[in-house]
């Protein structure tokens, strides 16, 4: 029952209590929209009024806009944007201008009352200003179907209720602002995090494509955007080509080679040609928006240029399914990210250009070197071929003469012989034997000793020092022995009395260093730069000048390096770097791993000098369960199951050993192990009847293969 119809003072008490209940109800609602909706319903329900409506001033302060209203009529008016001018000819207008409640006891008599076709039942009305902290924020209208529903004495109570409503409305707006602020703060933290992530990746990812891919993922995941893509300008500068795109749409577009013209009709086109950010808050209204069939849900888009200084490298596109999706924070952090990315892209491109320039320089230099070498070779061969052809012509002519000048013919034949021999030497040195083995772990000291042995260098002329922690090297031992043999031969031909070889782990990680120092005549200063060039020799035309170039070639093929330093009259030092073997540590600490010894092959006789390889072989084979004995000469009493003879044996010529083995009936169990395989020696050993001639094993696996023979 309408408390205002009751007799006072009960009426006042009821009014106060209802007003208090309304105030309590509305102050508990925090959401502004919900608050307004509920307030009109609560007021009407508590007081049994016909209609209530809440107007709030717009941002101009000139209009009071209906924001919530009771019933269907109210809903229709809210939807139609019903508003009344502040100070205008209406109850609300006057209440908001005068900041006082206005009462129309009988609307038919009230000049301020503007009749409303939506509310035909209204007979009386009260309009109460909504004031907070002396500021009018709107007005509340309450209407009744009864005349005289509102008395002057009701104003205070009802105004107090309206004031509570005003405070509740203000509080709810503040609450919403707080929520928004919190969301924005959280979002900003996420964006900063994302920017940090990209920054870290820019610093640590070397592969540009990986960096771009990860960046679009970070952008979409951190910002919750629909799509992000990164375009880079192609070499012509005419097109921006998609280099990374988020999700399936991105992948599909990249597969098709999606690109947009710089300066063309698209956000990316403009961003790249003008080097400025382009933002479309509603793509439907944007003239230059490129409608992309792969991205049908885009409603707003941003295109940010990727630029270093004034140089445009490309652009980033970011797209959302919401209109007006980009706030100031988004734009700021994304542009910062784009700037970082641009620097990374620029660096990657600079590096690529540097690589290309380097490769070009190398190609040019290599070609020049090749051209020089070819010229030299052509020159040299011409010089050696001419004596053959002219001499033969001379012999042919001599043979027609009577009497035959035999001395001349003999001399001519010597000329031909020498030329032919030199030509064959070129083939021997420049090409050498076939490359029959790929690089494998090897004991460098053993290869050194084999090299010295095979060129006939007396052991007393060579001293060898090896650091204990020296790892094995990766080498084709046949080629390396040949190359080292060339170096030793060089020293001997330079009248060196002694060659000192020092082997140790190199300062450069992954390499072994070897110094070969002789006390020979040295290399003249004007020749030192030329020693590696083919066909250049200080030793006269009867030398090919290919020993050192062949050495350089072999060591280069093994991914090693060699340098020379020398002083005329004070000897020469060659420094060789070779890649160390990645498999094991030093050659002395290999662990046993061979299969358990076969009972049929239990005794192995090693015919070798006492050297590091022999010790390695003994350790390895003993650990695998074999009984191993070593001797540098043959002991007729032993009857081993397998005999391994080191080809580079110093104690006795191998041919003598093999003869004795033949005599003892043991030749068929004999394996000759060699660091540097050679056709003639292999043929000779096989002719002598050995079981096989094999590369010297330096690892467990190689021993296992040998013993399986």
């Amino acid at each position: 029952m309408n408390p205002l119809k009751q007799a006072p003072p009960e009426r006042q008490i009821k009014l106060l209590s209802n007003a208090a209940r309304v105030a309590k109800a509305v102050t508990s609602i925090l959401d502004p929209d919900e608050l307004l909706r509920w307030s009109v319903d609560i007021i009407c329900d508590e007081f049994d009024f016909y209609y209530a409506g809440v107007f709030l001033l717009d941002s101009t302060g000139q209009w009071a806009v209906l924001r919530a209203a009771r019933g269907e009529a109210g809903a229709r008016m809210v939807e139609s944007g019903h508003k009344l001018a502040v100070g205008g000819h209406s109850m609300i207008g006057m209440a908001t201008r005068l900041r006082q409640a206005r009462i129309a006891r009988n609307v038919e008599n009230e000049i301020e009352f503007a009749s409303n076709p939506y509310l035909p039942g209204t007979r009386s009305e009260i309009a109460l200003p909504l004031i907070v902290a002396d500021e009018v924020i709107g007005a509340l209208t309450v209407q009744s179907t009864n005349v005289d529903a509102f008395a002057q004495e009701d104003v205070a109570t009802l105004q107090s209720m309206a004031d509570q409503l005003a405070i509740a409305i203000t509080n709810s707006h503040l609450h919403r602002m707080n929520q928004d602020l919190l969301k924005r703060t959280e979002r900003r933290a996420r964006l900063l995090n994302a920017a940090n992530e990209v920054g870290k990746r820019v610093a640590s990812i070397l592969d540009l494509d990986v960096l771009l891919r990860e960046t679009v993922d970070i952008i979409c995941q951190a910002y919750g955007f629909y799509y992000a893509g990164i375009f880079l300008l192609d070499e012509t500068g005419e097109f921006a080509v998609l280099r990374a795109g988020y999700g399936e749409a991105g992948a599909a577009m990249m597969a098709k080679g999606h690109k947009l013209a710089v300066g063309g009709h698209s956000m990316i086109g403009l961003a790249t040609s003008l080097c400025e950010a382009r933002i479309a808050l509603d793509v439907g209204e944007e003239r230059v928006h490129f409608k992309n069939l792969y991205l049908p849900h885009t409603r707003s888009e941003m295109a940010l240029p990727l630029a270093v200084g004034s140089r445009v490298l490309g652009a980033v596109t970011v797209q959302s399914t919401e209109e007006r999706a980009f706030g100031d924070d988004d734009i700021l952090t994304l542009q910062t990210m784009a700037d970082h990315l641009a620097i990374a892209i620029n660096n990657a491109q600079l590096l690529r250009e540097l690589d290309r320039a380097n490769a070009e320089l190398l190609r040019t230099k290599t070609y020049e070197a090749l051209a020089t070498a070819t010229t030299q070779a052509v020159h040299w061969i011409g010089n050696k071929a001419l004596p053959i052809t002219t001499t033969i012509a001379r012999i042919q002519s001599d043979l027609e003469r009577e009497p035959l000048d035999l001395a001349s013919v003999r001399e001519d034949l010597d000329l031909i012989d020498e030329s032919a021999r030199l030509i064959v030497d070129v083939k021997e040195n420049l090409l050498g034997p076939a490359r029959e083995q790929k690089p494998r772990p090897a004991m460098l000291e053993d290869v050194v000793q084999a090299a010295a042995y095979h060129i006939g260098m007396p052991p007393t002329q060579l001293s060898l020092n090896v650091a204990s922690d020296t790892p094995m090297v990766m080498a084709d031992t046949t080629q390396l022995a040949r190359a080292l043999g060339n170096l030793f031969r060089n020293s001997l031909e330079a009248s060196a009395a002694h060659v000192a070889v020092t082997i140790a782990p190199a300062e450069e990680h992954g390499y072994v260093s070897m110094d070969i120092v002789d006390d020979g005549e040295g290399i003249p200063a004007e020749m030192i730069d030329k020693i590696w060039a083919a066909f250049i020799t200080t030793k006269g035309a009867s030398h090919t000048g290919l020993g050192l170039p062949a050495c350089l070639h072999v060591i280069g093929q093994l991914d090693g390096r060699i340098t020379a330093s020398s002083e005329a009259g004070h000897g020469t030092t060659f420094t060789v770097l070779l890649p160390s073997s990645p498999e094991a540590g030093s050659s002395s600490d290999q662990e046993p791993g061979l299969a358990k010894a076969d009972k049929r092959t239990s005794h192995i006789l090693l015919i070798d000098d006492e050297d590091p390889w022999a010790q390695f072989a003994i350790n390895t084979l003993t650990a695998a369960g074999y009984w191993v004995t070593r001797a540098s000469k043959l002991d007729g009493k032993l009857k081993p199951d397998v005999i391994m003879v080191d080809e580079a044996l110093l104690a006795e010529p191998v041919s003598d050993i093999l003869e004795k083995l033949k005599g003892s009936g043991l030749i068929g169990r004999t394996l000759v192990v060699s660091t540097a395989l050679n056709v003639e020696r292999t043929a000779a050993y096989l002719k002598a009847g050995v079981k096989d001639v094999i590369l010297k094993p330096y690892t467990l696996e190689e021993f296992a293969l040998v013993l399986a023979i």
Partner: protein
Amino acid sequence: MTKAKKILIVDDEPLILRSMQKTLLRAGYQVVPASTCSLGLDSFKAGLDSDEPFDMALVDLNMPDFEGDEASGAGLELISRIQELQPGFPMIVLSAYDEVAKVKEAITRGARNYCVKGREQTLLDQIHTIFKEIE
């Protein structure tokens, strides 16, 4: 008078054939050249069927095989076929291949020795030695 030993040379390089033929002739041997594996095998068989069989063969490795195609192992096949017809028949490989693997293969198939072209200065000595060993 002792009959001169008869040597078969098989090589597809005409200059090599002629040069080696002259060398061997001057050393007192009879020489029959053949420029392909097929011709070489035919010559060998003809020799077997006659009263003047061959005493030795010098064989190149890289030449047309029995199908007429250039093959690096053609000479190895010829060694095997001749050894089938006459096991232990002395044969020397004379090849430009400077490869240990080829040496092993040739000797496994029955060759007595292996000479690299360009380093063949000891060839005559090798031939003399083999004939001495056989006697």
